[in-house]
């Protein structure tokens, strides 16, 4: 492989890395949802926490994105919203990710 070809590959790698970062940012900003006038991120951590707490209690408190406490009175509905938004964003991200593989 010539130096020119190496440079081309390195440039492509870099471009994919930047595009991936942008796609992830897009997914993460879309993961923010409002529930009971509080903001939450529909990420794996929140989903696991809500799932775990909902198995033990019907009502519980969680912290929102600004560390304010929020009482969750409808865990099933909240968990459903979190999972739906999480999968919506990851599905979109996965489609973009496929285009990286083809490059």
């Amino acid at each position, binding site marked *: 492989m010539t130096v020119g070809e190496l440079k081309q590959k390195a440039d492509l790698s870099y*471009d994919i*890395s*930047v*595009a991936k*970062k*942008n796609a992830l*940012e*897009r997914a*993460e*900003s*879309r993961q*923010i*949802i*409002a529930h009971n*006038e*509080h*903001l939450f*991120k529909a990420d794996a951590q929140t989903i696991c926490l809500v799932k775990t707490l909902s198995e033990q209690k019907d009502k519980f408190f969680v912290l929102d*994105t*600004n560390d*304010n406490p929020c009482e969750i009175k409808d865990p099933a509905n909240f968990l459903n919203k979190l999972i739906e938004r999480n999968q919506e964003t990851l599905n*979109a991200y996965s489609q973009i990710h496929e285009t990286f593989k083809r490059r």
Partner: protein
Amino acid sequence: MSTGVLLYCSNTPTYQYHRVAERCVELIKKNLKLEITIVTDAETYKKFKPLGFINYKLIEPELGNKRNGEQWNQLERCHAYDHSPYDTTILMDCDYFCYTDNLLTYTNIEDDFLLHDKIHDITGKGTYDFRENSIIPMLWATVIVFKKTDRAKRIFDMVKYIKQHYHYFCKLYRIDFPNYRNDYAFTMAINQVNGNKQQTFLPGKIPTLPALAKIIEVKETGIVFEYDDKINEIENQDVHLISKEIFNV
């Protein structure tokens, strides 16, 4: 409870901001579907094409602020609390293009004043590392979501006071940005109102395309831009555009 978007837009000798605002309004109508109020001056108002139902508030813009030697009208934002007719307001720069409805999420919450504390440089170059330019972390006044509460009013009143004594406050916070900048004015105001503590923020980062990236096309769903001799595109993602040359064509 009413919710709407408040934009400030005044043309300068260098930039036709009304053309930026026109695109911004189209995207707000399409994706946020909220009522819009534009605060502008009479000369700029005459240049707007018909945009459908928009509330216009005409003001006489304060002049004197400059950036890189060019006129930079950024002095009226501190009056947003008084200018806004809404209970919940999304105050945004007219160069913030909403390609999603993400901002709607922030209007259904109990916090009464939120703005971004983090930024994402779409070119991946980390252009906006300003941590060493002041002794407090800089906040971004590009998008501010506020409600008509006493606390929000105190913040805006504080911004007005800081504007009057801007150079003093710049020295106090060791800010090395000599011309008036809303980002710093709001950063300092929030710091003062909160008793030298920072406050709550909008989650996530504000996606920004820096001035070094040349915008090639503004599409219905995204932006095509050139950077580092490469053509790139972002789609279905909100974006703050710094380069505005394309709107002068």
